[in-house]
């Protein structure tokens, strides 16, 4: 599904170039549940943002189903993000003026289709993540874990091929973290959506079928977890 070749990202901090990604190459198969782990500053979030088409690499290529996507114009990247990629941020990245339901169905509205279809699907997804009773609540009225599950539901509204989750449990308590991770696992298992998440918590390895270990902008190890 994803074929990443020689991906590099260099940030200029003042006058000093800093290599956040250093010649990274790997593949992700359809239906995978993969985790990128590593210490803080190892480049795992940077890598996820390149894959999520939120940023452009300095060099290298990303192939999505054989199509090279790094050189696409912003409009085309926006369309790809809308149709095929779902992104869950580390912070609770919901729109404050919209209810949980509206937050979820907004990308569906952008994609088009009947009002009733994406609104119904929005409700179903909120049910799926266990928030069916809170569809009319605003983000400020939800806990961190609930907001993160709304964000997951939003990421699923357009039936994406892959969900990227950037440390989705970083700001959550243990119970909420478990709930969010189990939601991602069940989506991967039941909806067959590919999930690629970033975590610095070694315990999260247990949710991933494949674990990519990063250090200093490089993938230093790849571990399979056949029990998942």
């Amino acid at each position: 599904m994803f074929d990443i070749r020689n991906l590099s990202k260099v940030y200029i901090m003042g006058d000093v170039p800093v290599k956040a990604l250093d010649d990274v190459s790997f593949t992700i198969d359809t239906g995978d549940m993969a985790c990128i782990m590593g210490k803080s500053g190892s480049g795992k979030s940077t890598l996820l943002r390149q894959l999520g088409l939120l940023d452009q690499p300095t060099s290298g290529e990303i192939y999505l189903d054989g199509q090279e996507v790094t050189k696409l114009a912003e409009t085309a990247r926006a369309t790809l993000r809308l149709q095929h990629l779902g992104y869950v941020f580390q912070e609770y990245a919901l729109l404050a003026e919209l209810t949980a339901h509206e937050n979820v169905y907004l990308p569906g509205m952008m994609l088009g289709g009947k009002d009733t279809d994406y609104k119904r699907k929005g409700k179903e997804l909120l049910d799926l993540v266990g928030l069916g009773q809170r569809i009319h609540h605003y983000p400020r009225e939800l806990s961190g874990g609930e907001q993160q599950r709304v964000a997951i539901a939003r990421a699923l509204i357009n039936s994406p091929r892959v969900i990227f989750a950037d440390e989705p449990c970083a700001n959550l308590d243990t119970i909420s973290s478990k709930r969010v991770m189990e939601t991602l696992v069940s989506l991967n298992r039941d909806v067959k959506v590919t999930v690629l998440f970033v975590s610095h918590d070694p315990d999260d390895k247990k949710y991933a079928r494949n674990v990519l270990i990063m250090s200093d902008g490089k993938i230093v190890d790849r571990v399979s977890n056949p029990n998942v």
Partner: protein
Amino acid sequence: MFKSLKVAAFLAFKAITRGNLGITLMTIFMLMLVAMNLLFVPGLINGAIDSSNRILIKTYSADIIVEPEGEDQFITNVDSLMKAIESMDGVAAVTARNTINAKITFEGKQTTCTIVGIDPKRDEEVFEISQNIIEGTYLSPRDRNEILLGVQVAGADIKGLELYSSSLQHVHAGDKVVVSYANGPEKQYTVKGIFQVRFIQTDLQAFITDLEFQSIIPASRNRASSIRIKLEPDTNPQPVIDRIDNLRGNLEFKTWEETAGLMKSMTDSFFLINQILSMVNFLVAGITVFIVTYVDVVNRKRQIGIQRAIGIKPQSITLSYLIRALFYALTGLALAIIVFKYVIIPLEMRHPFTFPFGAAYLTTKFTVTARMSVTLLIVALIAAYIPVYRTMRTRILEAIWG
């Protein structure tokens, strides 16, 4: 495009209804004030122009002035010509006038003015001087030793008059004045009345009957310095002029607009003032919308980044801000038009602005209001677009995380 517009309208609607109500109301209020200002200045200027044109036609020029051509002093056979003109379509009334310059003396004080010989009945049908008598009464057709003075000639102890110091200052109805005509005769008249039409060129005139005028200049019988024609409302003067020209040669014609030299320069100045003030107002409107939008996009930079990250098209986000700017401008505009039409105009009708040429009433013209509205909306859209465009050019990650 429809999808983008739908999402934009959705985002704009939610931002307006669930955003900061105080900021929304303040922005609308600011734009309402700007729009009211944009309505007020041209409204006043158009009112002043309408008022001055009306007073010019009703007291000084009439709709058409017919004069002898070239060096000739008089139009001859006036009676038959007036009868012919009266019968023409579109002509409401006709009067003949003779004029002569004279000096008027009262208690040692002297002033010069134009004495106009008129048939009071006919003149009353064309002009409204008889409706503006402030002392005494209007002339009767058989009056011989009576004179009607303009207030700027008589003074009438009204010290606030523009030309009071050069007037006779203390003349009132019933007083006797001595008139020395430019052709030699000198005669004492009783002031039958004093009029004030608030148009200086008219208020500087004095009137006697045509009977009396003929006694001063016997050659003026069945002759006139000019013929003044009042047209039916909305009558085009040119066909009337053409018909008179075909009827009798050696005549010159002027429409009221051609006599409005002073008014024309005033109108031009008003127009320029209006343009300058309008530009300032549009600038204020633009800056208001720019600041509101700029502050909003700075505060929502992260939200905009998130919207872009989840696949909302940049044009939808931009459009949502433009819709909001349109909403502010349209609401402000609608409120301004309502307040202007139903509060300001009725209030000003009761307490009109007074100019040297009379009271000016605020008016609204559809074309002026429409042009102003469209310009204001365009200014609001441009002002909103600039900060949004700048924000949309930043990278998504920078928008979200700074």
